């Protein structure tokens, strides 16, 4: 399946904006109190973002050492790391928080990721996403759960013209088809 997508991308890649599938990644949900977050952040090697709907990251995603933490709820963090580091991350946070009530759940395969890049990215997303995606309203580093048409997504603006989208695995074909329609219709 992953191969199919790669070839599809090739054809689309020539005309911006273009859509790419993210590589497989390790993903965790961390829930806990401030102390737990502090310890977990330390173990994760990256202070968790304080503000809700913000992402913090370090390194290049998917590459060794690359880590992302997205605060999707007041006490809900989505942590992303390279697949090869998943177990280590899980163990490190678990150990750091042994003493502290918290929840750390492996959801690596719950999502599939997409990357949407190009000058019209916001317009493409606004075909189905009701949020204000202008830079002042949705600045670089903002990440939130929201909707794209009838699918729930996590939308993260990595760069002014680069969006990262996480979507529930079974919604991915719907999301991708809808995004391609929107890309065709954006002007």
């Amino acid at each position, binding site marked *: 399946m992953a191969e199919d997508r790669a070839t599809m991308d090739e054809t689309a890649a020539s005309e911006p904006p273009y859509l790419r599938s993210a590589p497989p990644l390790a993903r965790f949900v961390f829930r806990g109190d401030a102390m737990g977050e502090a310890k977990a952040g330390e173990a994760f090697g990256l202070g968790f973002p304080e503000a*809700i709907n913000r992402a913090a990251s370090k390194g290049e995603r998917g590459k060794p050492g690359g880590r992302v933490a997205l605060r999707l*709820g007041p006490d*809900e963090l989505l942590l992303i790391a390279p697949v090869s580091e998943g177990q280590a991350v899980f163990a490190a946070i678990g150990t750091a928080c042994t003493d502290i009530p918290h929840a750390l759940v492996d959801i690596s395969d719950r999502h599939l990721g997409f990357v949407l890049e190009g000058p019209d990215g916001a317009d493409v997303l606004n075909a189905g996403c009701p949020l204000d995606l202008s830079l002042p309203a949705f600045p670089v580093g903002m990440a939130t759960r929201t909707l794209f048409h009838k699918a729930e997504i996590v939308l993260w603006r990595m760069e002014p013209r680069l969006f990262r989208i996480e979507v529930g695995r079974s919604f991915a074909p719907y999301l991708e088809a809808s995004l391609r329609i929107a890309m065709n219709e954006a002007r």
Partner: protein
Amino acid sequence: MLLIHCPYCNMKRPETEFRNAGAAHIARPLDPATTSDAEWAAFLYLRDNPKGIIAERWRHAHGCGRFFNAIRNTVSDDFVTTYKAGEAPPETEAFASEVAPGSREANATGKQAETAL
């Protein structure tokens, strides 16, 4: 499509991200076993359903996931304010003037805090 201020995200977000969860400040009786049938029926089913100012619950279901409370005018659908779950309804003018004292039997802190089971 309403525009709703989520007190957790501290942002106005579109209604489709939210799920309405009915009247606010209806506390689950601390000890259900000792309630009468009538009291339990009231807890389950009786609602103020006001024409005017309502205190209601919403969940930012496709956002931060949190339940929170809102004061809204059911005639204009305009929100007076929203506040976090567990917080007392703010003393807004609109709310105070429309809600007769004592008409809300639920405790002021919103949902019941902790029950000892």
